[in-house]
């Protein structure tokens, strides 16, 4: 059984390739990394290059059409797609075109008796559900679920695909120098929430992150509603899922949608002035106090005033 994997994010694509290779190996098949427009640097494993008249990357609808076209020549009962906003749009389009089930945000992926199964969080991650669909199926997989594929690059097969004309014209407004990858791969994350009074105060959170050898992240309101930080910092259900060794929530209440993204952290620390804040229920260590006192005190205790 062959498996196709696609993500516009090369690191996620490498992880999907591991997942795909694992599923394919059991049945003597292969996993192919689907590459659009050109083969990316650093792609490992077997690649399936989609050659089309119109550029595909950046247009989820066209990518869906192209992958659908490729599936006519390369029979692949399982398609793994990276769980990003683009990935969701590609998966949605492809599912309708090829009449496929989509398991979204699944882990512990298995092929069993002609079915693809996995587990996913539901009700904002409060519960876990076992989900499954008959083959052929698509699975959307969040970053950090598998180790990146590290075997040497294999052969590149090319397929010519035809798609409809692009329906949406697209323009990049702001590209981030820092990708959310830093967050996804980070060992230490100090995340800021609405407990911060002003954007400038992110500086003390950054200082704590530096002192702990980590990077900063944020709850959704800071990146989305307030716009103090870019979208790539947004942790949780609708943002990035992280799995650091140490996660420090500073002025974050711990609403389930945020917690959904931090469950896989090894150690969770919360700093919040409200003893009743739900974040303490999901933390290993909590400090009840004003962050404007606690964070400076921590910096002093770490010898980094």
């Amino acid at each position: 059984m062959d498996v196709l994997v696609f993500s516009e994010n090369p690191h996620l694509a490498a992880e999907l390739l591991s997942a795909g290779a694992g599923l394919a190996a059991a049945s003597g098949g292969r996993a192919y990394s689907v590459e659009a427009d050109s083969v990316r640097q650093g792609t490992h494993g077997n690649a399936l290059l989609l050659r089309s008249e119109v550029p595909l990357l950046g247009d989820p609808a066209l990518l869906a059409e192209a992958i659908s076209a490729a599936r006519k020549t390369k029979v692949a009962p399982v398609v793994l797609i990276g769980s990003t906003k683009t990935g969701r749009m590609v998966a949605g389009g492809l599912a309708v075109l090829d009449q496929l089930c989509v398991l979204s945000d699944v882990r512990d992926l298995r092929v069993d008796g002609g079915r693809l199964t996995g587990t996913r969080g539901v009700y904002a991650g409060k519960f876990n559900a076992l989900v499954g669909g008959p083959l052929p199926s698509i699975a959307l997989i969040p970053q950090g679920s598998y180790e990146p594929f590290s075997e040497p690059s294999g052969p590149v097969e090319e397929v010519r695909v035809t798609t409809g004309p692009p329906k949406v014209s697209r323009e990049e407004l702001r590209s981030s120098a820092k990708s959310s990858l830093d967050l996804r791969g980070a060992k230490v994350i100090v995340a800021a929430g609405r407990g911060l009074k002003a954007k400038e105060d992110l500086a003390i959170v950054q200082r704590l992150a530096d002192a702990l050898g980590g990077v900063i992240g944020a709850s959704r309101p800071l990146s989305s509603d307030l716009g103090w930080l870019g979208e790539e910092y947004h942790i949780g259900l609708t943002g990035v899922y992280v799995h650091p060794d140490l996660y420090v929530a500073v002025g974050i209440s711990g609403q389930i949608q945020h917690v959904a993204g931090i469950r896989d952290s090894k150690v969770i620390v919360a700093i919040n002035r409200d003893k009743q804040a739900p974040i303490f229920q999901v933390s290993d260590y909590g400090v009840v106090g004003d962050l404007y006192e606690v964070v400076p005190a921590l910096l002093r205790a770490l010898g980094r005033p």
Partner: protein
Amino acid sequence: MNIAVCVKHAVDEGELRADTSGRPQLQGALSKMGSFDRNAVEEAIRLKESNGGSVTVVCLGGADSKKTLKEALAMGCDKALAVASARALDALATSYYLSRALKKAGPFDVVLLAEGASDTYHGLVGPMLARWLGLPFLGFARKVEVNGSKVRTEAALEDRAESYETVLPAVISVVSEVNTPRYPTLLQIMQAAKKPMEEVTVESLTDEGAPKFGVTVGDVVVQSVDRKKLVFEGPAEETSRKLIDALRKEGLL
């Protein structure tokens, strides 16, 4: 302008509790219009206010869906369409029946919905719906501007912001920062009762193109939280020292 907005009547995920066996206590659980769906309804009403036309709110679900439809009518939608489904459907089937219902009730210039449902958050119905309808999809909009026959949106993806433009009709999904949803007045709530509400069933919309299989959901169990929950209280100098000690013991410093 003929506008449709699709909403979901969702379990209130914040209030949902586990029973003694760790399964969600869905019987008698609170339910409400999906959190982001309120933003989609608000955006639909704003588009009507600035461009004229009418808004039809569509909800696929069980009998409870009418509560959500009434709320959307009270906010300012003009008509409601309930797509009655006795069982929970997956994204492919949901989007299919919504597309059939919209085709019957349409044509629409703009179909709005939220980026995802607050209880399941698949984020798939939008792009699927667009594909079933053969329309362009503008996803994750935080800004929507209609200009004559064109629409322009701005979206924040994980690592960049983009703007999209297309010719109407189109399907657009919105994120929460697109607007602040209004609360209906008492008068509006009363008036909503008089607004038209139609109902169709999933069965009546079933034809040969309907998906014949779906995602099955097996056991649903509560995520175990296995945390130490050690909380330090007191002067900051003291609590921070205790925290640092604890992190040293964990081998994290």
